[in-house]
């Protein structure tokens, strides 16, 4: 298992902190435009995912990739999580993983 560059649990807010680093975020698909996916992140803000295939609208997708500037990720791996997803719980996880308990994750 390659643990050289772990992906940080992030939402739109936290992506700004990790520009250039590998992150993972869950977005709910709003629209698909060519090779770009526009979604709503778990904290309600908009995120753009470049280089990702299209996914059905309103599905939740987990994107692992490099944070690239403001509000966008260059996707490496995308996974469809379906329609049932608890965004609030995931967001709570992001807060904890980047706050008090960072050492557990990075």
């Amino acid at each position: 298992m390659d643990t050289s560059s772990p992906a940080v649990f992030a939402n739109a807010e936290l992506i700004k902190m990790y520009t250039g680093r590998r992150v993972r975020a869950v977005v709910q698909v709003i629209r698909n435009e060519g090779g770009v996916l526009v979604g709503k992140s778990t904290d309600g803000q908009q995120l753009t995912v470049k280089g990702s295939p299209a996914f059905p609208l309103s599905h939740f997708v987990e994107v692992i990739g490099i944070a690239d500037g403001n509000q966008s990720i260059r996707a490496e791996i995308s996974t469809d999580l379906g329609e049932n997803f608890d965004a609030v719980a995931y967001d709570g996880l992001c807060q904890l993983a980047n706050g008090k308990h960072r050492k557990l994750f990075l």
Partner: protein
Amino acid sequence: MTNSVTPGAISMLLANPSPDSSSEIPEIVVQVVDLKPIGSSTTRFTFMASDGKMKIKAMLPTHFASEIHSGNLQNLGLIRILDYTCNSIPNQPDKALIVTKCEVVCPALETEIKSEVKEETGIVLKPKQEMVAKSAAQIVREQRGNAAPAARMAMTRRVHPLVSLNPYQGNWTIKVRVTNKGNLRTYKNAKGEGHVFNVELTDEDGTQIQATMFNEAANKFYPTFELGKVYYISKGSLKVANKQFRTVANDYEMTLNENSIVEEADGEGAFIPETKFNFVKIDQLGTYVNGRELVDIIGVVQNVSSTLSIRRKSNNDTIPKRDITIADDSNKTVVVSLWNELATDIGQQLLDTVDSAPVVAIKSLKVGDFQGVSLSSVSKSKVLINPDLPEAKKLRAWFDSEGKGTSMASVGSGFSALSKNGAKSMYSDRVLLSHITNDQTLGQDKPVFFSIKGYISFIKSDQTMSYRACKTCNKKVTEAIGSGYWCEACQKNDDECSLRYIMVVKVSDHSGEAWLSVFNEQAEKIIGCTADELNRIKSEEGDDKYQLKLKEATWVPHLFRVSVAQTEYMNEKRQRITVRAHAPLDCSAESRYLLEEIAKMSLS
């Protein structure tokens, strides 16, 4: 000029034991205490010279004896020391003050002057004091006083530690402090009427025991015992404590009758131990519902009802009761029922001040399940209004900033109606397995209910998993003579019966593990098939498939609603945990619950 001693006089005297001339001596006024003649002499007097803080053994000059005879100087009087020496006494650590020249300042004061250790200047007259710095001589004297008792009293004064008392040894004396005094209550039972009251006694080692007095003894000793004072007690009787009424951690309890001897120990300062609180937040009360443990809470009073009179069923007595609503920073409210004096006195005080939202701390409340969660006062409950505790200040700050505006829900509303679909109520009274297994007294009188989340860790494959059950009423059937099965309850024979699960499974969570008894409905969900089906697999498909089925059920997480009760099995008390309801693990709800718990952890 003030009629008082010179502070630090004794130290001054000791610092300069042999002054050369009287001009060197500063103004020194001491109080004469314990003035008595030496032996049968009329001219030589000894006393303790006191400056309010220290005392030193001293002797008066012989020419001064006339002052004593004339009454110019009496015990508790003040003298100014004009010339003196301090001599060492052989075999004693202290020095003695030989006064060679002095004059009377004041013949006699009301009491001995004692100053507080804290004060720098000025001496405060106090009739009873806490710790006073004593000279070595005084301490030695006191210790000797305790060891040579025979002269004083007829009974053996050798004090036994409370921990050594037992019902088979009658001749003991204990020296204890009253740390709690109950009220004098009247009762009526099959034998008639009576009064009773009890006290909680603590000795020097910290051991506690409860002492009860009935009727004449109660009347005799009720005025004698005072909270905080120390007594010598003997001729009481001991018996094994009745767990139902036990409030104190001791296997024995004491009864005093009219022949018992209770004597106040003088010289011991009255020390009322500070009430120690162990507060529980209102939203944590769920786990204590119907348990034996009494809780302490602290909160802001939001509402005070008027006094109601409740009629007691047993003897038609009317008792006053008042309900107050309390809120704390867990953003929940709870109703506390105050009874008797607490309702009338404290309750009235709270009613008068309710607009100022006073903070109230209450010790020893029983947790009931009326309207979900309710608190009720017992005879030993103590209420403090606006206490000087750090928790009180924190609550005050919280209330003034947020609490005032927030509308808070009653903690009980979360517990109403245990729904069949356990999902929602699986979060009320959520505890860890260790909470249940660590307290073996849970569910002694009435079973207590909890929610738990755990993983099935082990199912014994060689246990009796099921029983033969009647198809109609589900009760156990016996094999009838001939063929078929006989159901005792339905009083009929049936050719067929169904198998219903009755088994124990081992469940684990991160805190520990426990064996749970599971009945048919829940077992079906755990194993994933009916008892009949499982039996079929065992007999037709072979043991391997059977084991596999059990294995598939292991390490699956579940949410359970369980009841905990204490049962006796072959004269041994066992804790029996039974599953009442089951729900599959809902990851989303569970995640939210965990997030909440994590947030709570970081606050505390």
